[in-house]
């Protein structure tokens, strides 16, 4: 059933022909890869808003983009635009007319305090509160503000600017969103709905309220003293994740379509697995079954056994729970061989880029195979004895990797695993 262009189940093989990335390490594939393989951290003291009184004062904010204002929707759009452009350029599609749909993992944008205060400032009468804000809205149309806070706007702008086909899908599965965006593209091409898909994800939502929300759930590390050391996946003294910003975009095409137009194939998306958890809104089932199932489904979808995996790009958030659960689940699927399979967490350097994570880490996974170098898990000074993994500690490692498992596990129990292969 499988031929050059079809996989073990007769479905079109899915190639990646373009990638773009922005993180706190920098803009673009080159700058990011250089920093990532040098073990640099993008985490720093927050400068965007006052940190007095906050229990977490560090983040991986992206402050170098040119944006129409400093807000989550504006920063997220600027990054999504940059990464979509970089991916489309690499794929050779140029700036307008893409022969497929857009699947976009969208950040949770909303009206922010700066906007509320601005609206309040427009009114000279009335008591402060929503009635007054509504009166300000009735008095003047705030078209730009309205557009910025629609959940679909970033996708609409990207679709219109780059000429993708049809109504884009904006989606969210929390921390698994980036992977889910890729999955939607894979499914669409496999169905024959399209020969190509632009799959992107972006999250620039480090506002005071955004940070405080995660703090209130005790999800963030408070190891503020040395920001660049705070994200330490798989370490004994890990204490929570670092909220960060970023964007990843990938151009997917059927391998047949890519080769017909002479595009360079950067890698192959071999399989995707997903499974929802019904245990708890933020914690995974302690028996790990949904995560184990997601991993197995990914491997099955790719038509490979666990021993085909040369490296695991971990979800690795640096929370006490995730890293242990991830180890246990991988052990259940891989058996003892997991102890000698390199596994590292990009989040040790870029923090948790939330909605963007799955896409950013997919880009880094493909670069791992293209460059023959595995990025390290930095800040690994105090190994957790209950997690005996080869985390590629602190320093990059040159290695030829042909197949990668990339994990993303989200709040709300949404788990997605990607199996990625080297370009042929």
């Amino acid at each position, binding site marked *: 059933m499988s031929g050059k262009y079809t996989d073990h189940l007769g479905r079109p093989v899915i190639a990646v022909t373009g990638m773009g990335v922005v993180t706190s390490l920098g803009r673009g594939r080159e700058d990011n890869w250089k920093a990532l393989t040098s073990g640099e951290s993008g985490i720093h003291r927050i400068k965007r808003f006052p940190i007095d009184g906050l229990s977490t004062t560090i983040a991986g904010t992206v402050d170098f983009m040119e944006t129409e204002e400093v807000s989550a929707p504006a920063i997220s759009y600027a990054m999504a635009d940059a990464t979509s452009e970089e991916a489309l350029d690499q794929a050779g599609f140029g700036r307008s007319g893409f022969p497929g749909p857009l699947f976009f993992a969208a950040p949770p944008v909303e009206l922010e305090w700066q906007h509320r205060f601005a609206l309040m400032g427009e009114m000279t009468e009335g008591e402060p509160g929503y009635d007054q804000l509504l009166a300000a809205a009735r008095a003047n149309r705030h078209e730009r503000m309205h557009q910025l806070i629609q959940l679909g706007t970033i996708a609409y702008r990207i679709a219109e600017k780059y000429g993708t086909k049809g109504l884009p899908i904006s*989606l969210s599965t929390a921390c698994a969103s980036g992977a889910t965006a890729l999955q939607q593209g894979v499914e669409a091409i496999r169905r024959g709905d399209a020969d190509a898909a632009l799959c992107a994800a972006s999250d620039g939502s480090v506002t005071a309220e955004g940070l405080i929300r995660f703090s209130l759930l005790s999800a963030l590390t408070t190891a503020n003293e040395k920001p660049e050391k705070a994200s330490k996946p798989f370490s004994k003294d890990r204490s929570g994740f670092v909220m960060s910003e970023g964007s990843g975009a990938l151009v997917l095409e059927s391998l047949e379509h890519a080769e017909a137009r002479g595009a360079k194939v950067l890698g192959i998306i071999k399989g995707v697995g*997903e499974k929802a958890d019904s245990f708890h809104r933020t914690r995974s089932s302690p028996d790990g079954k949904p995560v184990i199932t997601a991993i197995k489904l990914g491997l099955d979808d790719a038509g490979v056994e666990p021993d085909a995996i040369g490296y695991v790009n971990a979800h690795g958030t640096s929370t006490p729970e995730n890293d242990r659960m991830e180890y246990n689940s991988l052990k259940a699927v891989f058996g003892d061989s997991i102890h000698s399979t390199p596994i590292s967490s990009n989040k040790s350097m870029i923090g948790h880029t939330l909605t963007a994570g799955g896409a950013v880490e997919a880009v880094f996974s493909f670069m791992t195979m293209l460059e023959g170098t595995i990025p390290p898990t930095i800040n690994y000074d105090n190994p957790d004895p209950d997690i005996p993994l080869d985390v590629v500690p602190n320093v990059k490692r040159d290695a030829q990797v042909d197949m990668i498992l990339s994990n993303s596990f989200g709040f709300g129990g949404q788990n997605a695993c990607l199996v990625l292969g080297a370009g042929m």
Partner: protein
Amino acid sequence: MTERDVWITGIGLVSCFGEGAQFHWETLGGDTAPAPVVDSERFKPYCVHPLPEMDWSQQIPRRGDQRQMENWQRLGTYAAGLALDDAGLKENEELVSTMDLVVAAGGGERDLDVDASILKDAQSRNDRENLLNERLPNELRPTLFLAQLSNLMAGNISIVHKVTGSSRTYMGEESAGVTSIENAMRRISAGQSTHLLVGGGFNAERPDLLLTMELGQYGHRGAYAPVAARRQSGGGMILGSAGAFLVLEDAEHARARGAKAYAKIGGVASDLGQRDEAATRQRLGAMFDKLDTKSVGGVISGACGVDPVTSIEFDMLRERLGEDVAIRAFTSMTGTAIEANFPIAVSLAALAIHNKRFYPAFEQAEKPASGSPQSILVSALGHYRGEGLGLVESIDA
């Protein structure tokens, strides 16, 4: 690839009128339209279609689960439960645990008291950002964030109803309702899913959402009026609290388990573009061309009441389907429920097909129905961006 038929085997509906698929058919499908249920006092100058008193425990048995949500997520979780019951699947652990889930979602409720209190104190502070740091960590309930996250309606549906196949959440206002059903239909059609729960919920009784709407000045102000008549008093949207979920199944899968089905989804067409008249007409025309509308006997429209998009929609429906086509703007009855609009439209169409009767005019401008349509066109054109059309057809067609 053989295309499989996509059957609608369960419907869960909650609106200002009450709850239940059968209840909505009885209420809306009679000889004359029911009197509108509207609250024009609480959010003056805006009307909303409010939720009736809900006994959430009917579908969300545990108080702990109810408390983790605000009304937006409760509405969706409740309607999802109704749909599972209606499909006869609620107790079927094997099918529920392998059921795929797609939720059309916005975001959850803010703490309005905390917001108002901060706004008040901000008036006399020139270090407002410090004020936020003082107040938010101490006054926000820690789990409120989970009630706000877009993908947590799906998370709650998984937790409460044990739906644990795949889980996706689509956003994008009205377009979310369109893309979630379109994607669900395509997956089943292509054999990528056998059974799936799809839909959304919307809580209109929220000053924060009314503000979002009104920043673009899309709201209708003043007394209630149905969609077409509303043009006389400035047009605009009247929002309504509602939830609508559907169980969709591969026809073979449904037959094998002896499921009853209301109707099938014959197709969905969607697009995006600038809203100048020429471009909008061109897109809608192409969408009509994609669907087989020759046997369409009626339209269930999610018209928002905002011009020019609502005028263009009605003009094109009449051009394509005849001057006397029976259009039913359900938004006159339930209000505009944004993400839930397209799911409501499909649900109401399925009920009409199944009961072999069409809805009475929801307002004077609507033409009488001619017979019982075997094919119904449904629409959800976003007030700002995004358009979707669908065909709901009799299974025997």
